[in-house]
């Protein structure tokens, strides 16, 4: 069960600190769990764990492709590997290894990509993954997750290493806007209805969940009753929930911190197009490259804001 505690404020703990603490708990509690990194442990809160858990914390060095292959082999040897690098490398750079050595071979590996979308900020376009969701959605049987906040991260991470096959998780290293209470639990494949509504359904993921909640508050002031649904598990998609809310509201907005090509917007559009054609608008990166800047600047530049979500909601309602 989850509890939405959204009030617009940020979480106290940074994502990377929660990640580090969670990995520590996982390797401590289960000797089969093995964590691998490609020279980014000091950036993600896992630095130093290798001293206490030398057999379970593996620094690969700057060789992401080999890291993912080694993780696949460790799975075949009976371990439960979880690997981390920046999302740009966790997607593009290791894609063939993730596809063949992990997914196709039916090895069980969790691949964590940090600095989701515009959260890459000052690392710029080279490090700004807008395409990772699209890539991993195209892998049969893969699980694809865009983590909403650190409460969710701490809750789901220990469960993900029990998954079969390839699991891709994108996370934020910084302080997210708090959406969930710390004792919340989540069910993979189930979307979370954070706010019920009848005029428009906003399906959001990751960074855009809190923006969608903010947009719903603004829309309410104008008498528009918007539902907000957290689509944190992008694959498998909670199709029943999407169809239910599309039918109930008759207008749909998707909101994501990545390219709409192949992303959440595409997933929802594909489902509705085949089953329940509904007016839809996709808020997200409209097929562009990233660049350096503050998260606020990037959000404005690419239209990843509550104001944009509200604007698109009204346009979509008008198309009913």
């Amino acid at each position, binding site marked *: 069960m989850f509890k939405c505690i959204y009030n617009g404020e940020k979480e106290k703990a940074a994502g990377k600190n929660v990640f580090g603490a969670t990995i520590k708990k996982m390797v401590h509690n289960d000797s089969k769990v093995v964590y691998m990194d490609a020279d980014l442990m000091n950036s993600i809160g896992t630095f130093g764990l290798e001293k206490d858990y030398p057999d379970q914390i593996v620094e690969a060095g700057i060789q992401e492709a080999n890291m993912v292959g080694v993780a*696949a082999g460790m799975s075949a040897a009976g371990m439960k590997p979880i690997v981390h690098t920046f999302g740009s490398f966790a997607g593009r750079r290791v894609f063939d*290894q993730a596809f063949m050595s992990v997914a196709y*071979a039916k090895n069980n590996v969790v691949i964590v990509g940090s600095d989701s979308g515009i959260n890459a900020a000052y690392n710029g376009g080279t490090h700004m993954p807008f395409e990772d969701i699209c890539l991993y959605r195209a892998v049969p049987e893969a699980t694809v997750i865009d983590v909403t906040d650190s409460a969710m991260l701490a809750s789901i991470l220990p469960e993900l290493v029990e998954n079969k096959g390839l699991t891709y998780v994108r996370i934020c290293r910084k302080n997210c806007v708090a959406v969930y209470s710390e004792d919340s639990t989540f069910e993979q494949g189930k979307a979370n209805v954070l706010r019920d509504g009848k005029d428009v359904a906003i399906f959001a993921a990751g960074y855009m969940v809190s923006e969608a909640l903010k947009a719903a508050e603004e829309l309410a002031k104008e008498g528009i009753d918007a539902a907000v649904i957290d689509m944190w598990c992008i694959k498998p998609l909670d199709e029943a929930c999407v169809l239910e809310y599309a039918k109930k509201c008759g207008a749909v907005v998707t909101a994501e911190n990545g390219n709409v090509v192949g992303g959440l917007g595409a997933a929802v559009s594909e489902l509705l197009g085949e089953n329940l054609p509904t007016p839809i608008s996709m808020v997200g990166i409209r097929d562009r490259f990233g660049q350096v800047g503050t998260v606020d600047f990037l959000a404005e530049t690419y239209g990843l804001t509550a104001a944009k979500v509200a604007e698109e909601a009204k346009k979509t309602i008008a198309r009913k």
Partner: protein
Amino acid sequence: MQSQLKKFATEIRIAQMEEFKARGFGHIGGALSITDCLAALYGEIMKYDPKNPQWEDRDRLVMSKGHAGPALYATLALKGYFPMEMLKTLNQNGTHLPSHCDKNLTPGIDMTTGSLGQGASTAAGLALGLKAQKKDARVYLILGDGESQEGQVWEMALFAPQHKLNNFIAFLDNNKRQLDGYTADICNIEPIDEKFKAFGWYTLRIDGNDPDKIVEAVNDAKANQGDKPAMIILDTVKGAGVKAVEETKLNHHLNVTAEDADAYIAALKAELE
């Protein structure tokens, strides 16, 4: 008089020719070149149980040059992992014996391979995972010479000595040819033994078409590798054991008529007598 292992190698060659004959084509050159290594591994070196292919304490083999699957399938069938008759299903629709090795389809296959370079890393991962669990099992890896043009092989070549993978023995099937021609003309990998030595591997270089020498080399590696991974460069002939294939320059993937296959099989059978 052939040694027992040489006889086994010839039997593997005969069985794989039956596979290629049934389908009419295949990756014949590189399957033949690695056959003597497979005879040594399954005839003497490796610890395994055909009745329990998933036995946790077994040694593992990763055929990273996954297109040599047919040679490995022939070996596994001869050792009783599945019926010999199944070999005729190579690459037939719905088969359990695909062109490239698939651990989810074929009993006895320890890792899925086919995208070159990737078996290097998964083999290292198996070795690391077995070590972490204090298992007394070894991991054997077979790389191709052309495959060693892949960057991933060299990422792994750095990784394995760093992590002291001394339960890990790799072979490099140096058959000198790849799909488009001679490796030396396309993207030379030599001196390949010196490269692995420089990367921190216990390295040997031997005649890779002599299974008895391969057994000796593995025993040498086990005794002397210390805390290093071992690399045994196998100098081989692509198409080894079947003269007509050896003499075909571009012999990576060949068509074979039933008549030709029968002639190759007859010649191989004569060697056994």
